[in-house]
């Protein structure tokens, strides 16, 4: 039984609703290794933005440092990009988005950038609920410095140069859940369809959306026994549901029995359709989400899909009670109070 969706973007049409072609979403040629999971994710980011008809000029691509953080150069050249400092992408994003609330921020980070040097900023970003898509391209290894363990590396994993890893890995999704993140998803670069649908949903979410995507490093960490390898992912991936994103402007024709799926309406009116697979899973239940991560870790399987969603937390710009106009577009008359007001203030210092 399949979910049937009539999607205006799919099919022969060569432009999206913005009148742009897929080419308009292209980046510079990649300099990452051939077969790197990050390239596949970059392709899905482009596809998601194209299919969602997001104007590339409205997007900012932000990253920290590392292989993953280089990748924003390889998609959407018509978007402003900022390859910032190691582990500090969240702070750059916070400033950039708060002062221009119309920007759509796509952050690309890695497991070192997020779970090691950047764990502090990551947690505080989630705590503030800044609207942005936060992708972790998780390969369990430092690629750019040629193969050291990262904080998500498997315990007892063996790397060529370093030997065996004695430490328990950081689970990015678990950290996000604990930090009260309202959109927590996990996927696998070897499952591009799911990656794309989840990115589309994340782009429609008004808050921080975390996507932990297992993205194999073909050079340093792709041995079959590694939980970050293509072979292991393909073998052990268990989608918790079938994910389909339906934009707000599409007609939806759903074809499944009651109880076989859940529809999640997102902030911009689009819908995420989650079709039940093996067992019932309610992504709005935080406790169930934590249980799922615990269980799948114990069973050594890769559960993918939308692990948790909570749309009720106010995003940062609402907490800050900002004017509707982006702060960057305010003019001098909005920003510089009058001479009379200064005289009044001065009177209180006499």
């Amino acid at each position, binding site marked *: 039984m399949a979910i049937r969706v009539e999607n205006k973007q799919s099919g022969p049409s060569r432009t999206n609703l913005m009148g742009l072609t897929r080419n308009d979403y292209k980046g510079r040629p990649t300099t990452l290794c051939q077969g790197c999971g990050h390239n596949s994710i970059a392709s899905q980011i482009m596809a998601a933005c194209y299919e969602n008809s997001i104007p590339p000029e409205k997007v900012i691509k932000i990253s920290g440092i590392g292989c993953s953080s280089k990748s924003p150069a390889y998609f959407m050249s018509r978007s402003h990009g900022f390859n910032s*400092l190691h582990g500090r992408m969240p702070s750059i994003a916070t400033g950039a988005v708060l002062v221009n609330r119309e920007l759509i921020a796509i952050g690309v980070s890695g497991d070192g950038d997020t779970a090691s040097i950047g764990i502090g900023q990551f947690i505080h970003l989630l705590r503030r609920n800044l609207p942005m898509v936060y992708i972790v391209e998780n390969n369990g290894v430092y690629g750019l410095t040629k193969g050291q363990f990262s904080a998500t590396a498997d315990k007892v994993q063996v790397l060529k140069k370093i030997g065996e890893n004695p430490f328990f890995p950081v689970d990015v999704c678990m950290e996000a859940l604990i930090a009260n993140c309202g959109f927590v998803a996990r996927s696998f670069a070897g499952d591009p369809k799911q990656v794309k649908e989840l990115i589309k949903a994340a782009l429609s979410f008004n808050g921080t959306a975390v996507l932990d995507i297992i993205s194999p490093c073909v050079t340093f960490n792709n041995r079959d026994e590694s939980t970050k390898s293509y072979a292991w992912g393909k073998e052990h991936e268990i989608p918790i549901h079938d994910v389909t994103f339906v934009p707000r402007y599409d007609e939806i024709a759903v074809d499944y029995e009651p109880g076989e799926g859940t529809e999640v309406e997102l902030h911009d009116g689009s819908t995420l359709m989650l079709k039940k697979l093996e067992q019932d899973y309610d992504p709005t239940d935080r406790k169930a989400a934590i249980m799922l991560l615990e269980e799948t870790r114990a069973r050594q399987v890769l559960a993918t899909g939308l692990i948790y969603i909570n749309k009720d937390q106010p995003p940062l710009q609402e907490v800050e009670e900002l004017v509707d106009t982006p702060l960057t577009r305010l003019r001098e008359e909005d920003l510089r109070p009058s001479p009379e007001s200064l005289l009044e203030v001065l009177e209180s210092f006499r």
Partner: protein
Amino acid sequence: MAEMQIAEKVSNQKQREQDPIYNDFSMVVATVNGSGSQTANMAIIRSLFRMGIPVSGKNLFPSNIQGLPTWFTIRASSDGFTARRDTTEILVAMNVTTFIEDLEELTPGGVCFYSDDFAVPGNRNDIVLYPMPIRKLVKEVNPPAALRDYVANMVYVGVLAQMLGIEMEEVHRALETHFTGNKRPIELNMSMIEAAALWAEKNLEKIDPYFLKREDKTKGQILIDGNTAAALGAIYGGVTFAAWYPITPASSLADALEEYLPQLRCQDGGCKATYSIIQAEDELAAIGMALGAGWSGARAMTSTSGPGIALMAEFAGLAFQAEIPVVIWDVQRMGPSTGLPTRTSQGDIFFVRFLGAGDTRHIILLPGNMKECFEFGWKAFDIAERIQSAVFVLSDLDLGMNLWMSEPLEYPDQPMDRGKILNEEDLERLGDFARYRDVDGDGIAYRTLPGTNHPLAAYFTRGTGHDEYAIYSERPDDWEANMERLWRKHETAKAYLPPPVIEKMDGASIGLIAFGSTDPAVREAQARLVGENIRTDYLRLTSIPFRDEVIDFVRSHEKVYVIEMNHDGQMRQLLQLEMPDQAVKIHSIRKNNGLPLSAGWITPALLEAEGG
């Protein structure tokens, strides 16, 4: 102790035959941190100020919430000298643990008001002692138990008012200001003050020479601290984003932003903000957010002190390299490391100037008074956006947290300078955009803001090497060309920086160079040196890189002394680097012990250096 006995004891003290001294003393109020003496001290300062007497207030406080000793210094100076004075003429002793030590610091002929339950040592026959029956007087007024300790401080306000001649009406007005018209605390405190004054009138015989009398020397002036002035400057400079992390002595700058922004900068019926202030998780995040905001097109700032600056080093380098406007206030305190967190210093000059890896160097503004804290508060944004780089403003604890008398802050005399930004029409007209191309020959390239709706607008910001189009490049030529342009740009910056303040004296033989909070001490020292037949020209630095006026000043003097508060003579060394051919004639007068500089130290140090 019966009142008659106290009066007897006091009158038994030797009365000195001395002319009265009007409006010229330094008073130290020694209390315990957290005991609520701030209200009392503020009332005294405000009263003097409103009596037209030039005054300054400096708080020497411990890094502690409650319980450790703290000293508040109030200087009254008819001549208008408001620097810290080395001598203490009047001591108000409210802290028994430091009483002996405080007494020793009192100048011969000085006066001590003390809580009458303190044991007075017998070794100071050269001072006047006035006991204050604090407990007894508090009991009489009987304030609510929770407020007893706070109200007790008002006893010394009342006694001082009576004994020195502070006008009671001004004390009342000062409390009105302090409690913003809130009647209850005003009345309670006033009743304590009046009771104490009445007691002093009946029981204490005035035998010291220090008097206060109304003058007309503060007319039109204001009393303000530098952090508040800086925050107001930023607000009138159109700040749209500030991120910060709590640290002494910079926190009150962000506090002042939070206090004044809602009343000065809200829209849509006063409830929607035209700014965002974020208390970050640390200083790394604070500057990162400010940089993100500056990149996006905001007037963005952060405020911190030395340890925070240390954490900001990597981002500071990124701001320089990627050319992102951001304003960073460093309210300096004593380092290295945690140092003396509540004491002042000018020790971050080197660190901030070169903060970052490789060939980083930064623009620095150096406010020397309240007007400049305000002026540089708004001007820093203009410079940052014009030059597209980090602009550091180096204040210090003395400027930032102490009360200074000042001419009124002046409304900005220039419209905002938002720098070189290309919009959609510009891009359409030009047909090409290279983020790092020196189109105008001044080193400053054009930028676009994220969200600019044109296919040519985007570029990729990075700390890595790049070509004119911001594309990653490791080519040696690209690197060198970009660095050369950055150097050109920082030469261009000089024209946008505030010029030094130069004051010449007829017959001057030597030049003095100073900056920041030491200005009042330097001026007072200049006046004293005239009495020693040494006449001096004075250049006060307000910015780095040094403008031509600074170079000319050094060249045109045979000998120059750089006066500063750090161990290494950092500013002197920067000047020597800038003009190696002049290096041997640039000398150093420096002191760095946590206390604000005083003329009493500068003058003999300079006399000694001059071989006198």
